[in-house]
């Protein structure tokens, strides 16, 4: 049995187009609905976050206030702490040489006699003028100084006599002394040990810079002139100690 479809193909084409239109219409509605849903989702989430933020904000502000108060307290006391630090550092500086001298005494051979112990102007080098009864004693003393590595970073020693050359390199009375030593008329010889400190002493800096400043105030300065900050009336930065 042969069946023949007499419906024109255009009829089916229109049906397919209609179905496609319905399909895309549905798809479009789905897209619109999805976008609207996403928008409302974010609106809802934003509102929730805002509500939560409103609860957290006072606490956060309180934290900031506490931090600010703590910071103000610390800033307020900063200058005082700087002064305390300066006072304490000055007091430490006053006695800083004492442990050095005490350690030096421990490392000094018993037959050595010191004539003068002085710190250099930069407070980093200890110069020791002394007297040794013999070359052997001086050697022992020098070996001791070399062992004091925690105290001195370098040690230089001068004054050891040679054979008829002892006066070379000596200045002033040292030459005569060595000559007499060589001639057997005098026992011992003078020496100078120059020791570089591992930790040079440093004078503390006044808080806020140079502290007082020059002694311009003593002279009165220009009449009516306002004081220069940091330049004290009588403040005076003393020169380093003079070596004798």
């Amino acid at each position: 049995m042969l069946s023949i479809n007499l419906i024109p193909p255009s009829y089916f084409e229109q049906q397919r187009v209609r179905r496609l239109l319905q399909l895309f219409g549905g798809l479009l509605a789905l897209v619109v609905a999805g976008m609207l849903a996403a928008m409302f989702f974010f609106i809802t989430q934003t509102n929730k976050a805002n509500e939560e933020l409103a609860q957290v904000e006072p606490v956060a502000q309180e934290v900031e206030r506490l931090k600010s108060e703590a910071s103000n307290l610390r800033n307020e006391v900063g200058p005082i702490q700087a002064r305390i630090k300066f006072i304490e550092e000055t007091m430490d500086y006053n006695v800083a040489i004492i442990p050095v001298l005490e350690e030096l005494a421990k490392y000094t051979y018993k037959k050595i006699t010191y004539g003068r112990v002085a710190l250099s102007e930069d407070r980093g080098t200890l110069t020791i003028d002394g007297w040794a009864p013999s070359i052997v004693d001086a050697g022992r003393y020098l070996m001791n100084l070399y062992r004091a590595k925690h105290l001195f970073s370098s040690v230089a020693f001068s004054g050891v006599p040679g054979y008829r050359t002892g006066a070379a390199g000596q200045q002033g009375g040292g030459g005569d002394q060595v000559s007499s030593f060589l001639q057997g008329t005098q026992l011992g010889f003078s020496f100078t040990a120059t020791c570089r400190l591992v930790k040079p002493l440093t004078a503390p800096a006044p808080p806020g810079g140079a502290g007082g400043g020059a002694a311009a105030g003593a002279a009165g300065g220009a009449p009516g002139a306002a004081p220069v900050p940091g330049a004290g009336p009588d403040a005076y930065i003393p020169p380093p100690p003079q070596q004798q």
Partner: protein
Amino acid sequence: MDRLTRVQVIVIGVLVCLIVGVGMFFLLVRPKMQQYKEVSAKLEERKAVAAEIDQARADLEKAKLENLQARLDYRRYEETKMPAISFNDRTAGMIALWRERAEVLGPLVEKWPRRFGVELRNDISVPAAPTNPNAMTADLLEIPLGQMTVTGTYQAILNHLRGWNKFNRLVRVDPPTLTGPSPTMTATYNLTVLIFPRGGLGPNVAIAGEATAQPGAGGAPGMMPAPGAGVPPPMPGGPGGLEGPPPAAGPGAAPMDAPPPPAP
């Protein structure tokens, strides 16, 4: 509509869906999404800040303690090592400084070495104080006393050097030069007295011959300070100033009643 083919419908449908979808995303969804992100980020940040509440409270307590401790420490040093000199009133402060330099400091320093069994071998001289109250400063005052020479045993000299930290003024002792064998050693060193004036710096004083005084500088030119005016108390809260009355000066400190001021 009947003329449209399937292909055309598909192309147009896809394009319309895309355009509408993308358009709605950028016009409606994206702004809300960004708004949410911003609020969310801010919320996280504020939550993190808020979570520090206990730590912040503890830190504040610590800061208060540090503040109090520093003030107490400084007060202790003020009471034990600083004379009561304040330039809140410049004239009175200047006169107190004169007394400190002319009458107090020298005898104090001269007597001190004997406590440690060493002999002071030189005369103490204290440089004269400045005479212009407007040149005063609230910063550190350094008063160089020059070179000190003391004699004694090695141990006495070391004790003497240590002892300067117990002196009732803050001094800076430069490292000494030791000469001579013990027991008659000589130590030579530079001594500097350091003074922090109390409180801040008062207004300039009107001085005859000066062009102008600062506003509120203390009245008419040539005006004298009231007789008997003492050193004002430290400025509360100012650098070095602490609440409460000024601590008593150390032993030997001069009474701070100002003598009649010099004629202008």
